[in-house]
């Protein structure tokens, strides 16, 4: 799936599915069409194709499997395994372990959310960043810590966040 973009009007990520995406989805539908109840495995297969489950995929699967989109959406949002948000090119993870927390990691997260204009668990509209929080990364002496991809940024202060994120 090459074209994923954020649609302002829809307020969500929209995927423009290509011919070959449909073909792959058809294979999944074929596999599970006659097996009532096999929605979850079907969604898993679809997510492993695209990395996430945009509405377009949910709808197409719904049509093929004869399941209403609202039912599918309900299932997708219920289980921890599924996500409707694509991963950004960079992933920023802030440590919320005890030591970082005590040293003000919650302020860091707040600042990250502000400068990227997204919440934890979301991806920026231009797909450049995803924001996550993690438990202790074992760098307590350098707290608070955040990782951008594999780079560690340590002893952070909220004022530094903006500049760090800009480098990517």
């Amino acid at each position, binding site marked *: 799936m090459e074209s994923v973009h954020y649609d302002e009007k829809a307020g969500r990520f929209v995927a423009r599915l290509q011919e070959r995406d449909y073909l792959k989805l058809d294979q999944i539908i074929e596999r599970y069409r006659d097996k*009532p*109840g*096999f*929605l*979850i*495995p079907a*969604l*898993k297969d679809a997510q492993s194709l695209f990395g996430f489950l945009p509405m377009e995929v949910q709808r197409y699967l719904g049509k093929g499997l004869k*399941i209403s989109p609202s*039912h599918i959406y*309900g*299932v997708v949002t*219920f*289980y*921890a*395994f*599924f996500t409707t948000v694509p991963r950004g090119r960079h992933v920023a993870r802030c440590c919320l372990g*005890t*030591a970082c927390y*005590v*040293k003000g990691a919650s302020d860091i997260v707040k600042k990250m959310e502000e400068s990227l204009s997204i919440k934890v668990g979301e991806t920026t509209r231009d797909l450049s960043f995803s924001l996550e929080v993690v438990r202790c990364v074992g760098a*307590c*002496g*350098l*707290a608070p810590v955040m990782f951008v991809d594999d780079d560690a940024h340590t002893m952070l202060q909220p004022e530094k966040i903006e500049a760090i994120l800009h480098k990517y």
Partner: protein
Amino acid sequence: MGESRLQIMVCAGTRCVSGGATRLRQLLGEALDARGLAGEVEVFPAECNGLCGQGPVLAVQPDGIIYGPVRPEHIPLLIEEHFINRRPLERLMLRAPALDGRVPLMKDVPFFKDQRLIVMRNRGRINPERIEEYIAQDGYFALSKALHEMTPEGVIDEIKRSGLRGRGGGGFPTGVKWEEVRKYDRFPKYTICNGDEGDPGAFMDRTVLESDPHSVLEGMAISAYAIGAHQGYIYVRAEYPLAIQSLETAMAQAREHGLLGSDILGCGFDFDVTVYPGAGAFVCGESTALMYSLEGRRGMPRIKPPRSAEAGLWGLPTNLNNVETFANVPAIILKGAAWFASIGTAGSKGTKVFALTGAVSNVGLVEVPMGTTLRTLVFDIGGGIPDGRRFKSAQMGGPSGGCIPEALLDTPIDFDSLTQAGSMMGSGGVVIMDERTCMVNTAKFFTEFSVDESCGKCAPCREGLKVMLDKLTAITGGAGEPGDIAFLEKLARHIQATSHCGLGQTAPNPVLSTIRYFRDEYETHIREKRCPALICPALIRFRVKEDICRMCGLCFNACPAHAIQWKKKQPAFIDRSICTKCRSCIRACKFGAIE
């Protein structure tokens, strides 16, 4: 098990592998080859025996001699002595923590001595990828006996008389459940294996599925015959890819051998199984939620009755048992109800598998007869608490269970005694805690888990647990107030009484049990704003008690933030403007000088 004269079973458990067991296996194979012993001695990966503290561990069968820890440089000598001179190498034998000296024979190691293996009867003895090895250990004989010699009613009667109770936590009598499903005249019926093991610290179902999948398949086939079902499902959590793979392999082999599919063993009985991977929702361990999930819906429990025995999957009569329950069934059918009922206590028969973790010397899976005391489990089998620390509490039953204090160490482990003690059998996770554990923080941890996993359908669980967590967060953060304990107790009772399903009804147990047995710790947090175990950072002063400090400098070396000033013959000093409260100094100090 092959044609070789001797087998070397090298542990393939996580701890041994990280200690180099895989390389050890490869080197052993090469060394045996070089000495021309490859045909005589075969090297196998084996399931974790639970002696992780002394890994990498290997056992030589059928000699029954166990060595550990074994390093690559030991190999030449080991082969020379044990396999050529036939003189077991004493200096490499396992050292038992409780005994003096080396213990050559597996059966003499205290860790194994007090265990009784029914569910894990094939532990370390078979290769799960070969059905022939399972069959060689009397595998599928029970299914054959049931199909050829017993009526479905006879099977149910046998299971009822054995006293087998569900191993997933609830402890419902298995035979009674089967009888109920059989009684309904609606078809098709289903039998489901619950492998949605979700408690933090529990991994026995995963291990059974990975290392002895046929025992579960055989148990399911017997249950299907008893209740009149022809289709089974195994619901396995998605986090267990190896278990799923192992099951798929086992099912394919069973089909090839006519042990699954149509006309099993020529008896005209059809039964097949489908593996269904879950998608990450703890609540799906609840029976009705699991069945909704199998139907491709959100896994939210519904009100009972009707019980799933009457209206389960797709509204049809359905039997649901846990992995461990099914693994018990073939042994009962083969050896008889009387044999099984002779093991255990009056109300709880047979054995239970526990995942022993936390502050205990032997971390791993153990299987003991019901009625074994917690003391035996922790001190004899578990080898006690390492580093001379003190036992504080055993957390059993995960987020649905409770903490059992030292005073109740002699409680026999069975369904009823544990419930009485305010905990529960649960699925079998046992986390041992020593004096460095804060009980309020532990209660908070489990409540956090339950808040995350609440499905949100009913208010007491969805909202009540959140309020409970807020209160616990306040207490551990130094904002506790008098009256908080009473408030927590009252709220907990309400949640227990009014929640919809087992998750909500049991989620307050960690809080209630810690209040019951460790009330003083709550009070210290609230009144003195102090965490006696030095866990809750907001309640630690990070100050060196100069009268206790031995000026050794260990804390100085341990501090990653360079917040500690220390010179020889001077007590250390913590600069709190630099301190990150990471607790490294507390862990490093041998004298408890930091408060």
